[in-house]
């Protein structure tokens, strides 16, 4: 009996192996033209072909998959709203799905399953750019339009890269706001970040530190950026530790939406609203109470819903065979975006403070 079970299992596995061996997956394709600085972007021919093929059969609309770093935090859930709205407005099947934690490996697997599902486009916010390269290449070879949004993947494997803001501007504005809130350009400060491999946060930190070296040389960063893994609780405990370890701490910059919230909680609990300034990227709704209390001084963000909407819009645009050209472009419900080569920038950040934060609801 045991033998029989063993034999059956082995046979089943062989069957699976043979099936994969016979897999006739890939249609012929040419990789997307490498974008040099001022070339317009062509969607890969295969993507247009498969999209055109679907169009000519007339029955299905595009399926555009938008993959966040993780689901279940307010920032990405706000983006989800934008994605779903765009799906309705444009008549496409917009799918928003992501891993339950900011786990690069889980993200890779989900994308693989999306490839199996046969979507037309995949837009991903990368937890870890390097880990995505093999699977995104696979997607490309399968004729799927590959984009990144919110957190970039490796440049060479994507057709389009959507950034919510210009990283340099954002970083500089953040540091400016910090100094404004601190009331002085001299003193100790610390940085909270997401994971050490989150591209966007890393870029902001890099630009910010370079900027600070020039403009605010008397600002003193007390320790390496502290990771909070997109977790409010961690931001809270680590801020508490920072406050205890560096009693002269005057400012905290929090990158990635949960970080400023956790920092604000800690500052509020320790009643240090007047001595420590917290500045960062969080959603106005999450930060409202703390901003009014003074625990968080300023929040700089874009609208994640708009970002989601833009991602779907541009995916649909390219799937229809249009070229995305350099320069400015009007996008309904989003505004004017600027494009340069493969990169799209949505717009400047909004600063939310006590005065205007109640006007927003996301």
């Amino acid at each position, binding site marked *: 009996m045991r033998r029989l079970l063993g034999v059956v299992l082995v046979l089943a596995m062989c069957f699976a192996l043979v099936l994969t061996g016979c897999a006739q997956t890939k249609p012929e394709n040419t990789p997307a033209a490498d974008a040099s600085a001022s070339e317009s972007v062509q969607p890969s021919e295969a993507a247009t072909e498969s999209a055109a093929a679907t169009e000519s059969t007339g029955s299905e609309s595009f399926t555009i998959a938008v993959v966040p770093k993780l689901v279940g935090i307010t920032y990405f859930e706000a983006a989800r709203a934008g994605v779903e709205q765009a799906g309705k407005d444009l008549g496409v099947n917009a799918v928003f799905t992501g891993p339950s934690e900011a786990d690069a490996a889980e993200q890779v697997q989900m994308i693989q399953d999306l490839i199996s599902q046969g979507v037309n486009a995949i837009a991903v916010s990368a937890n870890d750019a390097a880990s995505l390269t093999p699977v995104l290449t696979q997607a490309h070879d399968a004729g799927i339009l590959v984009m990144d949004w919110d957190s970039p993947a490796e440049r060479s494997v994507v057709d389009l890269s959507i950034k919510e803001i210009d990283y340099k501007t954002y970083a500089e504005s953040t540091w400016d706001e910090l100094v404004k809130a601190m009331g002085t350009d001299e003193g100790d400060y610390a940085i909270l970040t997401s994971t050490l491999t989150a591209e966007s946060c890393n870029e902001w930190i890099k630009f910010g530190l370079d900027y600070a070296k020039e403009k605010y040389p008397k600002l003193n960063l007390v320790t390496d950026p502290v990771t909070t893994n997109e977790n409010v*609780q961690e931001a809270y405990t680590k801020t508490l530790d920072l406050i205890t370890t560096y009693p002269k701490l005057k400012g905290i910059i929090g990158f990635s939406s949960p970080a400023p919230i956790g920092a604000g909680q800690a500052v509020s609990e320790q009643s240090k609203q007047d001595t420590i300034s917290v500045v960062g990227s969080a959603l106005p709704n999450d930060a409202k109470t703390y901003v009014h209390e003074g625990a968080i001084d300023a929040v700089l963000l874009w609208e994640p819903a708009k970002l989601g909407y833009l991602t779907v819009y541009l995916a649909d645009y390219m799937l229809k065979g249009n070229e995305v050209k350099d320069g400015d472009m009007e996008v309904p419900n989003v505004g004017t975006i600027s494009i340069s080569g493969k990169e799209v920038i949505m717009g400047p950040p909004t600063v939310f403070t006590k005065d205007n934060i109640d006007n927003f609801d996301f």
Partner: protein
Amino acid sequence: MKRIFKKKEMGLVILALLLMTVITSVNGSFLSPMNIINILKGNVILAIVSVGMMVVMITGGIDVSVAGIIAATTLVIGNFMVSVTGNPILAYILGIMTGTVLGLLNGLLVAFIQIPPIVATLGTYSVMSGMMLYLTKGAYINNIPQEFIDFGKTTFLNILPDGDGGVIGLPIQLAFLALTIVITWYIMKYTRTGRGIFAIGGNTISAQRIGYNVNRILVFVYGYMGFICGLAAVTHVSIMRQVDPNAFNGYEMKVIAAVILGGVNVMGGEGSILGTLLGVLLFAVINNGLTLMQVSTYWQKIILGAIMVFSICFVVIQKRRASKKHAKVDIA
């Protein structure tokens, strides 16, 4: 006096004292009242849940769904408080009921369906956390009524100096920890159920043959764990003043680590509240102390791991030495 030194927990006490000395010598603010209160407040939830976990582990089982039970309870009371009232008493009652019900579910699976505890609680955890994620999409609950927030800020014994010239006291949450300790201690020491718990941990079949109703006790144990989780959940919200569905991801590992540090025998049958509390203390001191010593975050995990392995070995070797002195009649 010598008997006190022989006790297993002594090793832990020595270790803790050693660590605290090292830390204080590097950063004096470790022993400041402010910092101590921070450590207490930051770990009171861990302590409460660990006591409950200890009871479970004494039966030889384990509950990895605690994170789910606590998170689910925080959601229930959060929504309740926002829409109905911020009365702490009602919140606690509701929270405890929610936790207990979820815990009883675990108990039923372990006792009557005889699913191994680690698997049963893993299953329920998946179901619970999945449902919660689906229902809340990670949104926080922010507008906790002021009444509850004020309750959370109450302190007692306001006599300690806080370094700025004022006085601070012990946060009220510690009172709940004390409550948990007293209830658990009473159950374990003075009730038949308590003795049954130890018996089951030692040898389930023998316990059954002696006459303990194993099923009933197991259901009670997991239900009690749920009760404690509910209590901890409400207490947590009183500290954080906000409900974050993701706050407890991975918490079960911390609890288990603390309980193990405290010397509970994972095979069951042994464990003490004092040991568990010392385990939590050790865990807290390590975490907080390392940061204060400005030890790079990268070294912290290694040191934590090394201390864990070392203390485990230490406790085991100590136990073996102690048992060598007994005459043994081995039927096993």
